[in-house]
């Protein structure tokens, strides 16, 4: 009779051997092979090499191979970076390889490691005990390690960066200026001010990779790499992106990336904030008004360019009026500008810029109107006496002369939407009459009482104005044309 449990004893032997092998393997890995242990053994050798005086010998004697960490409860940080970066506060470690090297610059004098930790500036996974996991490019961690050049983004957490020595935060300041120069605020809100075509950027630096489209990005799939690539060409990183290519150099893209990473409303205890940061926060509640030129550059230029010419925007398939055109600013009243700026043009991509929308104050809007005018005024223009108009005839005239560019019912096309409610509200009859008569210099709008276009009599123009006034009354073009409704009351009273 064969032993019925013989095969089980073999199984037991094999399974037990496997168990022992893997238990021993785990123990060896834990107690001897860990990355940080190998690094600390090398560091101990470095200490021995440099132990030339008593102090050096004492440091060597005191050195223990152990897990090291900086715990900063106030910042919610337990940073174990110092387990491998042993030499960051040892000035002798200048000519050695990373991770043993001393921290560059004099930043640690003012930011002692035991008070600030590491991740408040560098980001990354402070709790990790291996470089790959600390760097967190490709592990499950929201805030990967910033490349050294980008670390200055973190200064903004506790400082008003404009008060810092400019050479320390040069790229960040450049990014801040570029943001204004490139008129990013035309489409993006920051600090409650800006347009609405793009997302608000107030907490852009806090975004995780899961909030950004990474599918077209080459590794590493990190937020900072996304920003960098996105500033070079938004359409490549986010297919179908409507963002205009900001046309920046590599260095400018880096600066803008740093500025974006600095946009992080981090909850940091007051005691960590620099006095100028506290002041900056207080001042932010009552910002200094911008000049008209600044407003125009930061919030208008993104779409309107220099504003002297109207243009066709292929990306958005829209007409962008030249709002500093000489014939506009000599025709339109301040009220006309103010209504359009405060309320925007609903249905178009011109957002409202009033205090509760785009965040411009009434004074700033006044300043920007002054800037648009560039000194020109409508005061010297003498009023024109107009006859009363016939809307039905106006429709025919509109279809013959205006419709091609301004579209059916004035809903726009390759020229502004003159059926737009804000336009109808803001534009006085006189403004419309004057525009039709004189046209717009530097645009496709001809003067209809000159040799450039079919001549319209004063009566014709009054009829067209009367027709335009019917547009708001929810009556269709067709209904007017078929004479089903009475034509609008005369509107041509200058």
């Amino acid at each position, binding site marked *: *009779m*064969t*032993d*019925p*449990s013989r*095969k*089980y*004893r073999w*199984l*037991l032997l*094999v*399974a*037990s051997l*496997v*168990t022992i092998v*893997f*238990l021993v*393997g*785990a*123990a060896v890995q*834990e107690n001897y092979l860990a990355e940080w242990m190998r690094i600390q053994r090398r560091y101990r050798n470095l200490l021995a090499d440099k132990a030339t005086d008593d102090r050096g010998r004492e440091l060597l004697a005191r050195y223990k191979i152990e*897990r090291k*960490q900086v715990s900063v409860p106030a910042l919610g940080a*337990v940073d*174990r970076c110092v387990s491998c970066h042993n030499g960051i506060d040892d000035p002798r470690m200048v000519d050695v390889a990373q991770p043993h090297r001393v921290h560059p610059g004099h930043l640690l004098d003012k930011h002692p490691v035991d008070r600030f930790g590491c991740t408040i500036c560098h980001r990354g996974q402070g*709790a*990790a*005990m291996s470089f790959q*996991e600390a760097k967190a490019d490709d592990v*499950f*961690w*929201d805030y990967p390690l910033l490349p050294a050049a980008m670390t200055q983004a973190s200064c903004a957490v506790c400082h008003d960066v404009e008060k810092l020595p400019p050479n320390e935060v040069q790229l960040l300041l450049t990014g801040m200026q570029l943001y204004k120069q490139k008129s990013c605020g035309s489409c993006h809100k920051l600090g409650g001010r800006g347009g609405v075509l793009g997302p608000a950027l107030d907490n852009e630096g806090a975004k*995780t990779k*899961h*909030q*950004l*489209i*990474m*599918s077209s*990005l080459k590794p590493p*799939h990190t937020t900072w790499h996304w920003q960098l690539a996105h500033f070079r060409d938004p359409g490549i990183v986010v297919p179908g992106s409507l963002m205009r290519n900001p046309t920046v150099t590599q260095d400018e893209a880096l600066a803008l990336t740093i500025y974006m990473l600095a946009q992080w409303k981090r909850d940091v205890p007051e005691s960590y904030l620099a006095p100028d940061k506290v002041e900056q926060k207080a001042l932010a509640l009552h910002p200094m008004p911008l000049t008209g030129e600044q407003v125009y550059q930061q919030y208008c230029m993104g779409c309107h360019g220099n504003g002297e010419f109207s243009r066709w925007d292929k990306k958005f398939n829209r007409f962008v009026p030249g709002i500093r055109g000489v014939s506009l600013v000599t025709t339109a009243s301040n009220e006309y500008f103010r209504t359009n700026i405060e309320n925007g043009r609903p249905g178009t991509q011109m957002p409202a810029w009033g205090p509760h929308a785009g965040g411009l104050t009434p004074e700033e809007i006044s300043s920007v109107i002054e800037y648009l005018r560039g000194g020109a005024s409508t005061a010297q223009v003498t009023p024109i006496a107009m006859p009363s108009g016939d809307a039905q005839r106006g429709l025919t005239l509109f279809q013959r002369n205006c419709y091609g560019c301004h579209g059916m019912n004035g809903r726009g096309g390759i020229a502004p939407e003159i059926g737009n409610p804000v336009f109808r509200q803001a534009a006085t009859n006189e403004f419309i009459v004057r525009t039709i008569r004189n046209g717009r210099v530097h645009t496709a709008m001809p003067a209809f009482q000159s040799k450039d276009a079919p001549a319209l009599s004063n009566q014709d123009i009054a009829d067209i104005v009367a027709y335009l006034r019917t547009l708001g009354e929810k009556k269709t073009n067709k209904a007017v044309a078929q004479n089903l409704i009475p034509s609008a009351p005369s509107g041509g009273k200058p």
Partner: protein
Amino acid sequence: MAETATHEFVQNLKELPGTVKDACFRTGKLPESEREESQATFHNLFLHIHSVRVHLRSLNPTLTFGLGLIAAASFIITLITGVLLMVYYKPSTDLAYQSMKDIHFTVYTGRFIRNIHRWAAQVMVLVVLLHMARVFFTASYKKPREFNWLVGLGLLVITLALSFTGYLLPWDQLAYWAITIGSNIANSPRELTDAIGITQWFDPGGFQKQLLLGANYVGQDALIRFYVLHVFILPLVLVTLMGVHFWRIRKDGGLAKPEDSPGGLAEWGGERREVFQPLATKTYGLMALVKGKRPTVNRGPENTVMSWPHLFWAELAVFMLTVAITLVLAFYSDAPLKELANPAIPENPAKAPWYFLGLQELVSYSAFMGGLLIPVIVLVGLALIPFLDRRAGGEGVWFGEKGEKGVFWQSLVFAIAITVGMLAFTVNFGWLRSWFPKIHQLWIIAINPGSLLVVVFAAWSLWVLRRRNSVRLAAVSLFTCFLVGFTLLTYFATVHRGPNWHFYWWPSQWPLH
């Protein structure tokens, strides 16, 4: 006198190891005769749940593949590693994730221990399911083992609940969104109550969800509930049920096995052995009080061997095998730990733990059907098996009834064809909502791929019942369909469902966003 007392004291001191050992072990030494071997089994608290002799058939590895033992072993492993993890884990939404990171990075071998815990739990869920299939296909639920089948079902549910409650504890994105999905499955009766418009008066779904989470969302209340369930209540229930389960195995006559042949020679363990006539009057002492068939009642003991040492070698070997498997898995594969739970950033796709993914696939068709009715139908159906299939025969033999293997293969092919066809149809053509956008939700609750699968499988089983004229074969066909459906739906939802629960051939094709 003094010298004698000192002498005695020194003598006692010298004999200390031996006397302590004698005091601890009632027999005091390794057994040498069969009598002592039976005493070794019988006089030991931990061993006496075994009979002193074990049938050779029960030692045959291909009868059970040791699945029940592996399940028990993996539970013991999770118990030990779980207690170790409890030392460092902090069940608070503020601290839990950081304590997981500490276990990963700084606790001595913490990551390894967590990996073992996680892998042993996965092995346990898988093996419990396989064990159920083994018991079914060897007809081991039949009289007198009906009750133990029910206890086993209870153990299955508790095992799933243990694994599910453990899922939340790391408080990472994976945990947060898996439990959000899971609690929405608990909320699924609402689909029906909403459809007939009575939710504001009668809302069992909302009640279930609140009972589970202690709130309307996954937060601190849910975490502490899951923690208490995971480390205390459910293990307690599981240990109790396991005790009952083991005790009933013994009381129901050991592992199910067919009657021994009534004499002559038979094939045993690769050799011809003599088999004796049943001895009608032969019983063993105390055990005569026990009703039912046991290895030694009404039968000769001739195909049995001593439990000590044979059975115990086998059990120890299976235990160590389980340990070795979980260690190897844990050594090479880390348990997942994603980013800190963030209610503002949903995981897409948010998937439940793998053993609930089949349900999640059904839930994607109809929350009520997939989340409540079908699981209830399946559990009730499984529970009824031993009470509806009562004809003796085939116990302890794989596919023991005549024609069973044929029915098994037919049902396998049938169920695969139906399930794959149904999934392919749904992926390609959508379902009622895509064709009739305004259809009433009640129609979708009633008619959806999940409910159709249940109906088709039930119809197939009834057809087998009538055609083959055997309840057992009908049960085999239905159980096979259930296994296939569970496996394929789980596989499908794991591999082929991506963001927004859309179909993808492979996860590598998911958009990276």
